[in-house]
């Protein structure tokens, strides 16, 4: 059995090596420079950047992607979904159709989604792909759970960084739970003292920007609490 494993693996290594040698060593073309008025960033952005990112795999520059060209196996399923006529190759039209269909299916940005002021859009350029989440005790992320942090901070007279920093100390309720009165008061104290504003002013501003409108409760995580 071991010999079988060893020889099969050796065969697989050999195949891999042969494949490597057979491939002409040419880098795929760099992504096109942004046209005037068009931003290169746009994860969660537009179809142009979606197409541009995928077409970096277009090694022979024929405007289409073949299965062989798509060397990132993680995108295979996306490729298969896009290849509507199952001809083993994906055109810009097919990709655009898929993009339109699947972006629509996502629906409007949910609670905590980026949209609107304070969303991802006004945070300036960032590299494509992954970015580390801003860590907080209650798992606050860049999206700030729909709160326009820039505006809230401005009204309170602090920097957005300071706001987020102080907000990290807020004790969250458990998932799916509302904070107790005790927790609410404690959180309010933490925020008003940390930010240097009166609790009343804090309530006023937080209520103004609270997603879902004003409630009687003080600062609290969005409904449902942080999501495990």
């Amino acid at each position, binding site marked *: 059995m071991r010999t*079988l*494993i060893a020889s*099969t*693996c050796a065969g*697989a*290594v050999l195949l*891999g090596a042969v*494949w*490597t040698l057979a*491939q002409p*060593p*040419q*880098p*795929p073309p760099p992504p096109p420079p942004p046209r005037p008025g068009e931003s290169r960033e746009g*994860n*969660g*952005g537009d179809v142009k950047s*979606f197409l541009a*990112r*995928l077409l*970096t795999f277009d090694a022979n520059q024929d405007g289409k992607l073949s299965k062989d060209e798509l*060397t*990132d*196996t*993680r*995108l295979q*399923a*996306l490729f298969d979904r896009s290849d509507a006529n199952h001809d083993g190759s994906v055109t810009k039209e097919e990709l655009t159709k*898929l*993009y339109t269909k699947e*972006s629509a*299916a*996502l*629906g409007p*940005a*949910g609670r*905590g*989604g*980026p949209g609107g002021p304070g969303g991802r859009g006004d945070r300036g350029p960032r*590299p*494509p*792909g*992954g*970015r*580390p*989440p801003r*860590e907080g005790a*209650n*798992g606050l*992320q860049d*999206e700030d759970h729909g709160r326009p942090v820039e505006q809230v901070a401005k009204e309170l007279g602090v920097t957005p960084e300071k706001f987020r920093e102080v907000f990290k100390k807020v004790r*969250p309720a*458990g*998932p*799916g739970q509302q904070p107790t009165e005790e927790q609410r008061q404690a959180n309010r104290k933490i925020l008003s003292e940390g930010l240097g504003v009166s609790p009343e002013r804090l309530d006023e501003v937080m209520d103004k920007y609270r997603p879902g409108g004003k409630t009687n409760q003080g600062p609290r995580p969005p409904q*449902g*609490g*942080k*999501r*495990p």
Partner: protein
Amino acid sequence: MAQELFLPNRRLFLGAFGLSLFTTRGLFAEQLFATPALTEGPFYPDKLPLDQDNDLILIKDSTTPAVGEIAHLFGKVVDEQGQPVKNAVVEIWQCDANAVYLHTADSGPKQKQQDQHFQGFGRFTTGSTGEYRFRTIKPVPYPGRPAPHIHVKVKRGDRELLTTQLLIRGHEGNAKDGVFRQTRDLIDRELLLVDFKPIKDSKIGELSANFEIVLGRTPDERPERRPQ
């Protein structure tokens, strides 16, 4: 090798070599798409279990396995050029088959519900190939999180390089999941979806799941002012 790799099935071993296509692209490409980040959530264990190995199904010397569908999770940690990252500590954590997390905030109130035989957390340090693997259970939904998921964290030295989650490709809960819906970019969404495929030769219905981790540049590496 300092750590035991799980190689229960030669098909899995061969699967690792299929990744040669992926890494070869890295040699020629400008850049691989970095694995996107997702929130850490509230349940990164507050007390690490005594057993922190890469087998979440058996705790220490216990012979009673965890409840759930056994899944072999494996992949490679690479940088955006496709180069393997050595000495990357990959950690995973997830709720058990009864939707209870190891974290005391969750397991405390749910003692009776908790699967005492599920380790809940695992760790693996990559060698020179950047490969990692775990034996765990296929994730299940959690209240408030219709998308089953496994939390993943990658550290190196004292730096956290990535915190994210992997989801099950094709699971109906994904479309309704608030956390996943925050990822609006179609490519980013794709990069977090994993196929849990039945292992053909397994007599006990084991699954295999391949999750490649591409590390993008961290804030420490970007030319930014360091926080004090």
